[in-house]
């Protein structure tokens, strides 16, 4: 009789990395559905290409560098999808391809793959493509107008190849335009990046992530609280709700700031990190040259988070405060 022997514990939870990634994909589903409805068929192509390139580049990277395959954990699928949702519908396909490959190869794999990247792949890739293709990334269009029939669903396909030729249709985002009603902001009926327009969809996905305890509630909670507080201080109370509902702050707080590997791990560090994201987002929006600063804020705090974890080691239960001699 051969008995297997191991060191305790002899049971583990059924949760796996793949299942966590699946949960994030489930949480993204309402956001994706709304994006496809609002911005047409081309959104599906963008998502498909972004996810495909992300998975393929992780696969090829492992192949070329002779590392064990890691695509099975589905984290590249999540990164690819989140990156695509960060783009406006006017982003041409080559931008999607380059950005998605950048997110995976440069930001994630070069630093050691899942869990090792210090920066959020999607946020960093968004910044990269914003700097590289400024006009395509700042060309926002109104959602598809279905009054002329369903064929409008395919109208956004025109942006697939020539993203640059869209300046004529550029529309203001709520960040520059105060005339959009709060209700439209909440339901997503305005110009903006694919994943960021509909607060309702983001919140339902976010609540799913919180309910399944996939993400730490402190990150979105403190980020949004800090964002609201600094908006109140710098812009006044009437700006809080429109600011929260527009731009990338909601999507960033639930889906990007919560990225495991680029956020800190101890409670105090998490609070500092989240307050920082909220604060920097407001500062960039109010004083910066860019209309939107959530990705910058996330990236900056990402960079700080290993330091926070190094400096703040929680005091263990029953451990006395160390007396400095």
């Amino acid at each position, binding site marked *: 009789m051969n008995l297997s022997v*191991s060191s305790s*514990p*002899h049971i*583990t939870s059924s949760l*796996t990395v793949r*299942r966590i990634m699946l949960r994030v994909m489930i949480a993204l589903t309402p956001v994706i559905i709304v994006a496809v409805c609002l911005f047409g068929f081309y959104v599906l192509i963008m998502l498909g290409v972004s996810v495909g390139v992300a998975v393929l580049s992780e696969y090829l990277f492992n192949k070329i560098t002779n590392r064990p395959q890691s695509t099975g954990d589905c984290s590249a699928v999540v990164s690819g999808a989140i990156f695509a949702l960060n783009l406006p519908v006017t982003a041409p396909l080559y931008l999607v391809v380059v950005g998605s490959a950048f997110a995976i190869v440069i930001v994630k794999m070069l630093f050691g793959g899942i869990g090792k990247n210090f920066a959020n792949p999607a946020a960093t890739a968004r910044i990269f493509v914003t700097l590289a293709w400024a006009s395509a990334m700042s060309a926002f269009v109104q959602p598809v107008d279905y009054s002329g029939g369903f064929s409008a669903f395919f109208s956004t396909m025109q942006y697939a190849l020539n993203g640059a030729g869209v300046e004529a249709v550029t529309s203001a985002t709520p960040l520059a335009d105060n005339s959009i009603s709060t209700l439209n902001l909440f339901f997503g009926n305005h110009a903006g990046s694919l994943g960021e327009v509909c607060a309702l969809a983001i919140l339902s996905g976010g609540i799913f992530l919180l309910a399944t305890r996939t993400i730490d509630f402190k990150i979105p909670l403190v980020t949004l609280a800090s964002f609201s507080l600094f908006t109140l201080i710098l812009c006044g109370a009437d700006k809080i709700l429109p600011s929260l509902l527009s731009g990338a702050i909601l999507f960033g707080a639930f889906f990007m700031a919560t990225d495991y*590997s680029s956020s800190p*791990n101890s409670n105090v560090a998490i609070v500092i990190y989240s307050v920082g994201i909220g604060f920097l987002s407001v500062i960039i929006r109010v004083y910066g040259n860019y209309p939107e600063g959530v990705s910058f804020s996330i990236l900056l705090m990402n960079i700080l988070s290993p330091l926070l974890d190094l400096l703040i080691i*929680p005091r263990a239960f029953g451990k*006395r405060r160390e007396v400095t001699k």
Partner: protein
Amino acid sequence: MIFRFRGGIHPKTNKLTHDSHTVAFPLPEKLFIPLSQHIGKPAFPCVNAGDIVKKGSLIGIADGDFSANVYSSACGTVENIVTMPLSNGNACKHVVIKVNGNDEYTKLEPLVNPDAHRIIERIKEAGIVGMGGATFPTHIKLAPKNPVDTLIINGAECEPYITCDYRVIIEHIEDFIGGILIEAETLNVKRILIGIERINAEAVKVLRAATADIPEISVAALPVKYPQGSEKQLIYALTKRVVPQGKLPSDVGVAVSNVQTAYAIKRAVSYGEPLIERVVTISGDIDDDKRGNYIIPTGVTVKDIADYVSANNYKKIISGGPMMGFALSNMSVAVTKGSSAILFFNENKLLSKPSPCINCARCARACPLRLMPMYIDAYASAGELDKALKYGAMDCFECGSCAYVCPAKRPLVQAIRLAKKTIKEKKQ
């Protein structure tokens, strides 16, 4: 008032033997009684091959104060004294007794109204040790160096599968309470708190009814959460007192006792019965009608139990609970005073390979000590033991919550255990 300790996990409780009344386990042909069933020095054998012993005959004498007597749990002939492994892998001397089927029980003299000194003497005489698994000699625990004002009875039984303490409470309620009162009298405490997980609400009900006119005793229904039964977490949950790292419960004025220990004390003091048997939960992937809570004499081997419950095709046998128990490599391991369960599994539930850490911090959230297991694991694996130490590697009490929750299935507590061992060895 119950205070929630930090962290913890919620594994499937699997209390399959919750309603199984305790039954006597049939005596095998031979008993292998270990002389080290406790923390401290092994008992010194006081019998020789060929000696005839009775149930209740002393066969091992405590070697000094930090040790415990060992009695024969059946009548028979001493065959020889052999060195064999215990469930934790350490080897010790075992007295092999060929059972002859007689049922003569030589008991100690029952005590009537003994004083504290006499009680402690009797507890030492009867070889009573903590029966929750740590097997700390009880006569030392009941004579703490610091004054104690609270006695806590640990009935949390937070490990999955295990139900033996629960059965003892509801089946032997009077002797159990009697044992608690003896302990309280010895310690001269006026406050007794019994902590029981809500999953055992029946025991809470029975105990509350039985202790209604004993104002010193209060029964707390605790949340079902592992490791609720960890001594320091339980003390916090019931009294909000924090036992400092490296200190004992008595340093915060608390003594903690296990359910079956209290029961054994009552039997030793009032009926003169030495500690020669205990209730053990037999469970896991075996037939429904074979699972149960058995009264097993010490020295019965796992092989005897496997034969009796006809556990076939098992791949893994665990002595104790699935969270902190020992996986056995050897069927000749015997039941001791500290064996709470023997679990048979027909598959190794840990076959999934570990993948890289995704830094999700679930381990840090699950740690009842507020440690960050992912960093201890990372630094220890990289050989940076000083950093592992800085992150509190030595404070870990190895509850295993981190390894349980890890979605990447990393052997976190195992890595910490190894780091602790290496650090200790380097210090020497």
